[in-house]
């Protein structure tokens, strides 16, 4: 797992775990690996992992059960909210890049529609299953 060094690593871990939950790699109600196992997997220190998990517990994405570890919420509304958040963040990133190239909103929409049609026709050729890392 590679992190960008100019964004807080705990934020990147939060996003990564949220991504694993949204994509279904980690199921609602499932237990997460221990802090130390996660730290080893990410090659970061345990305090950083702990901070990421703490933030996710505050946001109710994870539930901490005393002495048993951390579990993914079973509340679908919370997971759905996270999905919306991630979609929005990805769109903002894409939009601001295209906007910086002075491409109009109409053109962006047109290109996106074309792109989706093209993808659909290519789908048969690609393996669409996501690799789960956690």
């Amino acid at each position, binding site marked *: 797992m590679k992190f960008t*060094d100019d*964004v*807080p*690593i705990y934020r990147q871990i939060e996003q990564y775990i949220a991504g694993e939950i949204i994509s279904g790699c980690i199921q609602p109600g499932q237990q997460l690996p221990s802090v130390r196992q996660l730290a080893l997997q990410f*090659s970061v*220190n*345990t305090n*950083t992992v702990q*901070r990421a998990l703490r933030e996710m517990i505050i946001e109710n994405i994870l539930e901490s059960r005393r002495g048993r570890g951390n579990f993914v919420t079973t509340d679908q509304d919370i997971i759905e909210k996270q999905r919306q958040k991630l979609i929005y963040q990805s769109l903002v990133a894409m939009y601001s890049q295209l906007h910086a190239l002075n491409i109009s909103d109409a053109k962006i929409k047109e290109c996106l529609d074309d792109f989706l049609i093209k993808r659909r026709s290519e789908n048969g050729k690609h393996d669409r299953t996501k690799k789960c890392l956690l």
Partner: protein
Amino acid sequence: MENTIELKNVSYKRNQRVILENINLAVQKGTTIGLLGENGAGKTTLMRSIAGIAKGARGTIKIKNEAGIVERKALVSYTDSLDGFSRGTKIADIVEFYSLVYTDFSNDKYRELSDFLDFGSDQQKLGELSKGMKEKLVISLTLARRASVYLLDEPFEGIDSMTRKKIVNSLIQWKSSEAVMVISDHYITEIAGLLDEVAIIKDDKLIAQEKAEKIREQGKSIEDFYEGLYEKGVQTDDELSKNE
């Protein structure tokens, strides 16, 4: 929060030459801190002073509130370069020596570490080890003590990247959550993820101490932060008074 390491106005001189000047540093329980600076900036002397090996430092050095050298030595595990042993010494004999000298040395922990880092039979002689293997041995010996503070003096110097990764993983896996770890280096990228804080030492002075995530929150990498301070140069008091 409790400070595990506390340095107040620590200075060190050798043969009239200033090596450390007025160092103030506080490190909280459980922190992993990178001590960064160029060669000759004073990193090793600072570590040896904290460990109680370099004698004659002025000012206050406290480890868990203990200022005495004997007490400090019992609390601090420092990466020894093993220069005191002859090239013909077997690894097994060095391990034996460690378990006799340090009451907090755990043979079990040493076995786990040496198996994980995998540097071969303990019947090998010190002189037969490659640089990477010797560093793995040093790390295993250092972390096998149940110490409050681990001081790792440039553990990645001249080490290939596979070995470096293995050592990084051993640090993540075997550092207890209460212990403080100080890692000195002049090359930062590969260990950036390990660090809670960085302290930067330049021209015998500690010029910055900052939380790693706080640096990243400002959109900077630790490397940017370090190089920024080194290149632009923080004006030291001496330089300021010269300009006046």
